[in-house]
């Protein structure tokens, strides 16, 4: 980038990168907790590094990150704690890496979950995105690797995708730091509640299943009023998800609900959920 374009960009209101302070691992009491989720090898660690200034090792192969990495950044005078989750194809199966990702999104209660999506493999990546949208509505989709998609002759209409998913969709080429300022803004807007998401929910289950589901949701809502993802909990219970059943047994699900009611600006660090 030449000096002049830098200057022009800085005068544009959308460009707010100067407001970004990379905090590395030195996050104190963060105002917002942001999770980074997505399929393996979509660039989560690259985005993590770009935002935090940390140098998590980035490898071009799936399954490289299997534990959580944490870092932080400061944007427009708000501190964000960023958690890089293991890359997974789904949240429905039982391997430890998927459980870490799923448990964090559910029990860690991130204020925003960034779902990193590989534009060259949109359909498969959306499977995970839809599953995450069943759990939480505070999602920003980072439509990454658009440069690679273009090279392969693929165009993704980010606006259309955003309308369909009901959450912000930011086209990015994270390796070249393209789209980082836009991502920061979208995360801020969702975190502060300035952007109201209307998450897509899967509704093609058939009448019989839908009836069973609604009955269970009603009972869950009665037991845990205000639980943000009763529908998802019901879906998992019907699937005999052992860890969700356990969460009900030891009342973690109830706590989930209470914490949300007592929402404050100073968020405590999320509980350690790694098994």
């Amino acid at each position, binding site marked *: 980038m030449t000096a002049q374009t830098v200057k022009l960009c800085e005068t544009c209101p959308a460009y707010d990168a100067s407001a970004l302070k990379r905090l590395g691992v030195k996050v104190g009491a963060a105002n917002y907790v942001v999770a980074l989720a997505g399929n*393996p090898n979509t660039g989560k660690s690259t985005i993590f590094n770009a935002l935090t200034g940390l140098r998590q090792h980035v490898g*071009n192969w*799936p399954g490289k990150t299997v534990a959580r990495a944490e870092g932080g950044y400061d944007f427009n005078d708000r501190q964000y704690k960023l958690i890089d989750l293991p890359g997974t194809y789904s949240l429905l199966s039982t*391997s430890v890496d998927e459980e870490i990702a799923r448990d964090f999104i559910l029990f860690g209660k991130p204020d925003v979950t960034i779902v990193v999506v590989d534009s060259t493999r949109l359909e498969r990546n959306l499977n995970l995105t839809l599953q995450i949208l069943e759990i939480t509505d505070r999602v920003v989709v980072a439509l990454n690797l658009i440069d690679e998609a273009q090279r392969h*002759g693929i165009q993704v209409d*980010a606006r259309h995708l955003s309308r369909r998913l009901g959450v912000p969709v930011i086209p990015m080429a994270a390796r070249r730091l393209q789209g980082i300022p836009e991502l920061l803004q979208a995360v801020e807007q969702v975190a502060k509640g300035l952007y109201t998401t209307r998450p897509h929910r899967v509704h093609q289950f058939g009448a019989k299943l839908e009836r069973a589901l609604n009955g269970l949701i009603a009972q869950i809502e009665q037991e845990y009023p205000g639980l943000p993802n009763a529908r998802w909990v019901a879906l998992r219970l*019907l699937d005999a998800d052992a860890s969700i059943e356990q969460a009900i047994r030891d009342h973690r699900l109830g706590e989930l609900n209470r914490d949300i009611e007592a929402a404050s600006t100073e968020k405590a660090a999320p509980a350690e959920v790694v098994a």
Partner: protein
Amino acid sequence: MSTPLPILEKAQRLRAELGEDYHDKLMEAIYADAAQIAESSMSRSSRHASPSFDRALDRALTHPVGGFLTMGIMFFVVFWITITGANIPSRIFGDLLLDQLYTLLHGIASALGTSPWLSGLLIDGVYLATAWVVSVMLPPMAIFFPLFTLLEDFGYLPRVAFNLDRLFAAAGAHGKQSLSMMMGFGCNAAGVIATRIIDSPRERLIATLTNNFSICNGRWPTLILIGTIFVGGAAPPALASLVAALSVVAVAGLGIVMTLLVSWGLSKTWLKGVPSVFSLELPPYRPPQILRTLYTSVIDRTLIVLWRALMMAAPAGAVIWLTSNVVIGGVSIAGHMVNLLNPLGLLLGLNGVILTAYVVAIPANEIVIPTILMLTLTLGRNIAGAQSGVMLELDEGQVYSVLTQVGGWTLLTAVNLLLFSLLHNPCSTTLLTIWHETKSRKWTLVAALLPLGLGVAATFTTTMLARLF
């Protein structure tokens, strides 16, 4: 369980009503929506750019025969560049740190009138051990890690995993084990954590127990050095670095063979079962970001490994110096240890010094070579009583002469050391990680004793064979 759980009961009742295919229906619904949304937001232009290149490359790199051949050549070239390239800087470091600076430090110490005990402890112990680590380990690591990271960044590792998948399936293990094995080539502790991607507990345990057969960062320097000075040295000079590189590839390759064999053995006996099916994604090839790769691999791998080695070597140097200079009953403590382990060592075609070094090096394999050199020299001096100072340049030729003349090494010792370096207990960090991940003392113990037992068996066998013929 005191409170009744109506929700769980209701869920169970509904589950029975819905029948078996609930999970599939759920997945189908999600997939259908994803497909529909993806389709409607995507457009393909007619000009298809490079996937044909990617595909052609994939066909070559994952070819049933060609793939393995390329793999062998690729790793051979990496080691050959490492070994040839590390020679010169190693010599410069050795000259600077082990000869000039060492002499200077001793000069300063005697000018200040420091007591021989203190200068011995600090200069011959702490300083020399750390200086050895720097000059022996830094140059090969600074070449090897960036090369390896470039291959990784390019997207080659998943292809290796793909090639090996068939073998792992045949061994009754999970194909993803090839990925945790790859990770183990960096660090076994990281490799053990990487087994989290395997969902079946049985296959995950197999992957955990066999991860140690991947040569880790801490062991590459030992292999490269011993391969260079003994195996390479035994070949004609023109072929020396080729043979040296081949020997390192052979040991690393043997590690992969051991991984497969032991996985097969475990899945047939202790951990019986059928391998599960999975899909492995081959990510697109990406042009490596050379400068960033160099930077991160130097910072993340080279310097961290070096730092770890130094942190271990400095106190170990002091301990070794002390144990070799504190004399009980006419023999130093280190001497007692070495004498105790010597019969076993000789039986395995190694010696007491090497086994002692492996005991000292349980926290970090990086210090095996410095420890061996120090013990060989200090004990040699004490026993012979003739050598006054520890004058040593770490010229490879001199390492060779120290080990052969003072230590009494032969080519057999070197080969056995290469084998033992592959087959021995994991370092303490890895063991701790295994315990953390398996939550089982039994499996942690197995993870420690299984490779050690194999190492004893392997070195014993080669020694017997060598003595027979």
